C-alpha cells in the first residue's frame, strides 16, 4: 500500500515518481506527469481510448500498474511527433479527415502505430482487426482505416 519510488521512461525522458502500487499507468501519465493526451473512456479496458505504446505495443494503460512499468519504453500520443514534425500517422489522420471529436484519436493513432510497427503492410482486414480494440462513435472508422492504409502504402 505504501508509496514507492518508480522511474518511468516516457516519451524519451525519465521521470521519478512516488506512487502507490494501485496507481494505474493511465492515472500516473495524466495526473502525475500531465500527459493528458491519453484518455479515460471506460477505465475497464473496453474502449482503447487509454492506449499507449509500451515497448512498441499498444497497451491499455487503464489496466496497467505503473509500478510494473519500470524499464519499459513508454510512448504516449504526446511523444509521437519528433522535432516538431508530426508522425506520418498523425498527418494522415488530419489529411484524410479521420478526426472528429478527437477523443478516440490518441488511442487510435497509438494502436495504428503499434500495428505498423509489427506489420508494415497490412491488408484492410488486418488494419480493422488491429484497431478493433479502439472504439469510435464519430467517424464510422472508414477514414481512420483509410488513413492507416495510406501511411502503409507511402512507406512501401
Amino acid at each position: 500500500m505504501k508509496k514507492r519510488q518508480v522511474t518511468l521512461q516516457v516519451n524519451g525522458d525519465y521521470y521519478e515518481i512516488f506512487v502507490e502500487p494501485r496507481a494505474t499507468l493511465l492515472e500516473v501519465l495524466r495526473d502525475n506527469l500531465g500527459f493528458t493526451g491519453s484518455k479515460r473512456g471506460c477505465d475497464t479496458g473496453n474502449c482503447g481510448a487509454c492506449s499507449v505504446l509500451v515497448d512498441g505495443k499498444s497497451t491499455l494503460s487503464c489496466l496497467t500498474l505503473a509500478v510494473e512499468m519500470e524499464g519499459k519504453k513508454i510512448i504516449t500520443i504526446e511523444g509521437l511527433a519528433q522535432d516538431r514534425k508530426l508522425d506520418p500517422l498523425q498527418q494522415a489522420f488530419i489529411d484524410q479527415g479521420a478526426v472528429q471529436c478527437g477523443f478516440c484519436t490518441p488511442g487510435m493513432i497509438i494502436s495504428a502505430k503499434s500495428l505498423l510497427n509489427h506489420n508494415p503492410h497490412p491488408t484492410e482486414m488486418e488494419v480493422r482487426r488491429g484497431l478493433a480494440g479502439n472504439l469510435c462513435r464519430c467517424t464510422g472508422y472508414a477514414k481512420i482505416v483509410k488513413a492507416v492504409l495510406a501511411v502503409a502504402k507511402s512507406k512501401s
Partner: protein
Amino acid sequence: MVDYSVVGKSVGRSDAYDKVTGRGQYVDDLKLPGMLYGRILRSPHAHARIRNIDISKASKLLGVKAVITGKDILPRKFGALPRFADQYPICIDKVHYVGDEVAAVAAVDLDTAEEALSLIDIEYEVLPAVFDPLEAMKPGAPLVHDDNESNVTKGYLREFGNIEEGFREADYIREDTFRTQMVAHAPLEPHGALANYDVATGEITLWAPKQFPFFNRRVIAHLLGIDESKVRIIVPYVGGGFGGKGEVQICDFCAAFLSMKTGRPVKIIYTREESLTCTRGRHPMIITLKTGVKKDGTIMAQHYKVIADGGAYYSTGPLAITLSGYFAMLPFRVPNMLFDGYHVYTNKQAAGPLRGHGGVQVRFAAESQFDMIAEDLGLDPAEFRLKNVIKANEPHPAGLTIRSCGLYESIQEATKAIGWGKRMDYQDSGTGMGIACSGYVSGINMMSHVGAGAIIHLHRNGAATLLVGACDLGQGSSSVLAQIAAEGLGMRYEDIRVTSADTELTPMDPGTFGSGVTMRAGNAVKMAAEAIKEKLLSAVAPKIGVEKEELLIRAEGLYKRTNLKQPLISLKEAIKIYQYQDLPMPIVGSGFYHQPVKESTTLLSQEGDISSAYSFGSQVAVVQVDRETGDIQLNEVISAHDSGFIINPLAAEGQFDGSIVFGIGQALYEEFFWDQERGMILNPSFLDYKVPTAMEFPKMSMIEIQTFEPEGPYGAKEAGEGTQVFTLPAISNAIYNAIGVRFKDLPITPEKVLAALVQQENVEEKKKYKEVRKKKHKEVKVE
C-alpha cells in the same frame, strides 16, 4: 456553379492538430489549484420514497469538504425547457429510477469521495415500479411523478387534410405496429464538469462539454438561485455529444453547488456506467401505423399512433413526440394525416434528444411499411417512393416550406449506383437490397428567440478572430464557420481563429442541436463578414480613389473587380489606412440570424415550419444473411444525400460515415438488457453494450446531390443527422429482400433472424404468408 475560394473545399479542420497530438483539452484534462473531486450517490431502487438521509458519518470523514442532499438545494425543478421542468437536480422526497441522484460529496481525492458515499445512510420506502409504457398507461399503474394524474403526459395531436376521406379514397390499406429500442449516445468522452466559484465576486465558472451553454446557463442560475449574469459556461473540446450533452447534467449542478459551498473548484466526471445509464437515451417507441394508398402507389392517408417510453423524466419527451409527427410529414407527400402521439413516464433512465430525435423511430416504421405496401401491390419500392416524393417549391400538405429538395434525384442516383435491377434476382436468395429515404430539418426552429450571433474582429495584422456561441462537438462546426468567415472576408482560412461557446465572450447561440449550426451560426458569420467588409471598404475606397462597389478582397489584398491580377494594396495596408483615420481597432463586425419562421412558432402549440430548410436523401443497403447462423453481413451501403451546398466535403463525408455506423448500431447491435424485477440495466458497459467496432463497418459511399438552399449560407443545409434516419429501414428492407422476413422491432440480431426463419419454415406460417402476399383486399390488419 460558383467557384469559391474556401467554402466548398475540403480544408483541414482547425482543431485537428490539437487532437492528433493530444494537446486538445477536454473537461477531464483541466485542473485548477485546490480542486476537489466530486462523486454522486445514486438510488439503487427504481421507485422509492426517501424517508431519511444521514450524512453525519460521511461529513466527518477526513478529507470530505461538503456533502449535499435534496435538503440543501432550492426546491426548484428543471427540464429541457422551462415548461418541461419535472426534475430536481438532487431528489428531494422520491427517486424515480435506478441511478437517480440522492446525494453528492466533494473531497480532496476520489478515494475519499467514494468512501464518503458508502458512509451515507439512506432509508428508502420502496414503491411498486412500472417499466413497461403500456402498463404505465393503465389506470391504477404506479405514478412515476405524484403531481401528475397519470403517467401519460404531453402528447402531440396533429391532423391535416381529411383523414377519413383519405382512407375512403384509398384502394389498399394496411396497419402494422413497430417497436424501437432505447439506445445510448455513448460518446467516447463520458459526461463531466468542472466548476469554480469565485468567493469574491459570487460568480460561477463552469467548464463542461455542453451543447447549449446559453440555455444551460439560465437553468444553472435558476437552480442555484443566483443571477444568470453570475454564471459563465465555457465549453472545452467535446468528446462527442450526439444530443446527450445538451441538457444540464446533474454533475454540472453538483459541481457548481459543491464549489459554492466549499469555495474551491470541484470536478465531477462520470464513470462509463453512469454515462451510459444515468443520463439519457433514445425514446423507445411503439408505433402503430395505418397507411392507405391508391393501387398505383399514391399515398392517400396515414394515421400514426405513437407511444414514446419517456423514462423517469420529461427531458425533451414532448418535443420528441412532436418531432416524430413532423418527420411523418417528410420526405413524402402525405395529403391526409393524423398523428396521435403520447409520452409516457416509466421508472427507467429517461429518454431525451439523440441524433435523429424522433425521426429515426417513425421513419423506421414508415419506410418499412412502404416496402410492405409496395410488395402487396406488386410495385417496386423505389418506384413507389418516386411516385410520392416531395418537390421543392410545391405546396406541402402540412404547410412546410421546402425551398430546395433533391429527394427525387437521390433515389435515382442511389438506385443507379447500386444496380437496383439486381434486387429482383436477390429475392429470398440470402443476399438482399433495400432502400429507404429521409427528410430532416436544417436548423430546427421550435421556439422563438433561437437566433445565433457571430462577431468577427479583424486585426491590424490581417488575421481575424471569430467569436461564435455555437459548440463544436467534434462535428467540425468551428472549422466550417471559419471557412464561411474566410470566404466572406476574402481572407485565408488559416488566418481565422475561432473562439466558441464561452457565454462570457461569445455571442448568444441557441446551441448545437436540430442540425442548426451551419444554418444559424453560418448565416450569422456571413453577415458579420459582410459588416466588416462594409466598414473596411467604406473607409479605404475614398482614400485610394476607387468606388467601394468596385473593390474585392482576396487574401493578398484589395483588388478592382475588373483587374484580379494586380492587387491595388495589400490587406494589411488597407487595414492601416482604416486605423489611421482614427477608427477603433480591431474592426468589428457582428451578425445575427434568426430563421424566417413565424414568430413564436412552437412545435407544441402552433403549426408551421419547424425549420427554414430541409435536407433529403436515400440509401440503398446490401446485406447478406446466413440462414444457418442468422448472421447479418452488411456488404455495402450507398447513400445519396442533398445537403444543399456542402461547405467542407471531407468533413461532411466523415459525418455521413459516422451517422451511418451510428444507425447500424441501432439497427443491428445496440440494446439494453434489464433486470425486469428491479429495473436495473444489466449491461452498463462497453463490453456488453455493443457499440460497433472497426470490424463492423461496411463499405460506404456517398453521392452528393447538389441543390441550392436559398436560406442556407452559400446554399448549405445539414449533413450528418438525416443520414442516420434512412439507415435503419434500408437495412431492414434489405433483410426482407434477402430472406423474406420482416422485422418490426429492433435491433435485428442473428438470434431474431434464426427464430424468424424457424417460424417461416413452419408450414402453416408459410401458407398464410403466401396468401398475404397475394391479397389485394381493402383492409388488412397485420401485427
